[in-house]
């Protein structure tokens, strides 16, 4: 062996790709956390096994609202956002749909060996930015690394928690006949944005994901309508059709929709026409449907319209006592048809 060309047998620090060693709890992992993840998230203080979170209330709350979610979207970066932003907004929204003011998020990564460290940094920076925007803190985290092929790049899981908004009594089981169904904005943007960057379907579009936190909008709605805001849902996978079917089923009410009232942006309609998809089944990440009692509906609608996340809000239908669990729609030519849930997988992993 030529001493001049011999390479040092000590392990080199990998600066570009995540290695299995980064997940093994030793020095490499500490370096990854200290060098990449913690700075982005602004985590300071001693590294503990669990976080103690001061909820900042002087009694009065005996319930915490909690939600957990996983994000496996590919591609991880898409027009309008990335998996990090999606993870924060998605978690915040789950809490908001139950009438909570989100307080904090626990974050966990499952990283595939070989993922670029820069990508990990960028995603974490997105998480931090989205959390700041939404006014929530990332309080706890975990990182695991699995072998090449055992995960698709990066999976993010979250657990979010929050406190109930005063005066809110919101539940998927709460919708009542005669409730007005309001939607906060146009549908189909997220799913179509994802599709537009999928290789085998490849088309260019000026469509960006609508991912955004909705908790502030919900707070404004509860402010205006109080307990008249009966049920909320953000239609993610499965689209508006699936979300409404779930609510109809859980609340045992029927739903009647007016097809011409449902806001579908032209580009979304065009993409759906091109690919033969139904906009009602396409995923969303930044809109919500609300079931509100008729006396309060106008006030809630006005409050939504005054808020940036709801400025295109409108009524799209109502709950009825007839056909509980079923969603029916008046088509543009005046006939009616049943709107069913999405059957099976329309697209692989869009959120």
């Amino acid at each position: 062996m030529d001493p001049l060309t011999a390479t040092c047998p000590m392990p080199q620090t990998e600066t570009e790709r995540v290695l299995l060693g980064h997940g093994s709890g030793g020095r490499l992992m500490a370096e990854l956390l200290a060098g990449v993840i913690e700075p982005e998230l602004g985590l300071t203080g001693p590294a503990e096994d669990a976080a103690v979170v001061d909820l900042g209330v002087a009694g009065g709350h005996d319930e915490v609202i909690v939600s957990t979610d996983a994000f496996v979207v590919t591609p991880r970066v898409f027009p309008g956002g990335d998996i990090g932003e999606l993870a924060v907004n998605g978690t915040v929204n789950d809490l908001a749909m139950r009438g909570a003011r989100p307080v904090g998020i626990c974050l966990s990564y499952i990283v595939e060996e070989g993922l670029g460290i820069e990508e990990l940094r960028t995603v974490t920076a997105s998480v931090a930015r989205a959390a700041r925007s939404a006014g929530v803190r990332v309080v706890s985290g975990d990182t695991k690394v699995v072998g090449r092929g055992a995960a698709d790049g990066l999976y993010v899981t979250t657990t979010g928690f929050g406190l109930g908004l005063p005066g809110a009594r919101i539940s998927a089981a709460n919708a009542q006949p005669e409730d007005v169904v309001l939607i906060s904005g146009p549908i189909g943007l997220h799913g179509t944005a994802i599709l537009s960057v999928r290789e085998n379907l490849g088309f260019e579009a000026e469509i960006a994901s609508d991912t955004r936190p909705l908790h502030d909008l919900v707070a404004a709605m509860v402010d205006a309508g109080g307990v008249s805001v009966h049920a909320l849902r953000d239609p993610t996978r499965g689209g508006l059709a699936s979300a409404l079917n779930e609510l109809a089923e859980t609340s045992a009410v029927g739903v009647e929709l007016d097809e011409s009232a449902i806001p579908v942006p032209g580009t979304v309609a065009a993409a759906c026409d091109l690919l033969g998809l139904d906009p009602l089944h396409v995923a969303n990440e930044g809109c919500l449907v609300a079931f509100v009692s008729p006396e309060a509906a106008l006030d809630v609608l006005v409050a939504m319209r005054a808020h940036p996340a709801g400025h295109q809000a409108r009524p799209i239908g109502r709950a009825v006592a007839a056909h509980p669990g079923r969603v029916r729609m008046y088509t543009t030519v005046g006939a009616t048809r049943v709107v069913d849930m999405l059957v099976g997988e329309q697209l692989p992993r869009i959120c």
Partner: protein
Amino acid sequence: MIGVCLGIPGRVVELTDEGLRMGVVDFGGIRREVCLAYEPDAVVGDYVIVHVGFAISRVDEEEAARTLEVIRAIPDALETELGATGPIEDEPRETEPREAAGR
């Protein structure tokens, strides 16, 4: 799912040549590469019907307008024979409750 019969109209915005006559077609804001080999006379600005990535026909804009004019010429008076219908807020509809066949 992608419909095998699906053919939709779009506007040619760019022509390219890769040994095969290709172009970019705009469908209401969505753009896609389309093979124009079967519409060799199509130029930028023309509307074509696209099926599985191929232009199979050109839209005749005069005929398109004529079709609509003919339909618009159908007198409104006929509508009253059908009865008024419209969005949900109008007079109550009779809807027979359907037997759920299982979902």
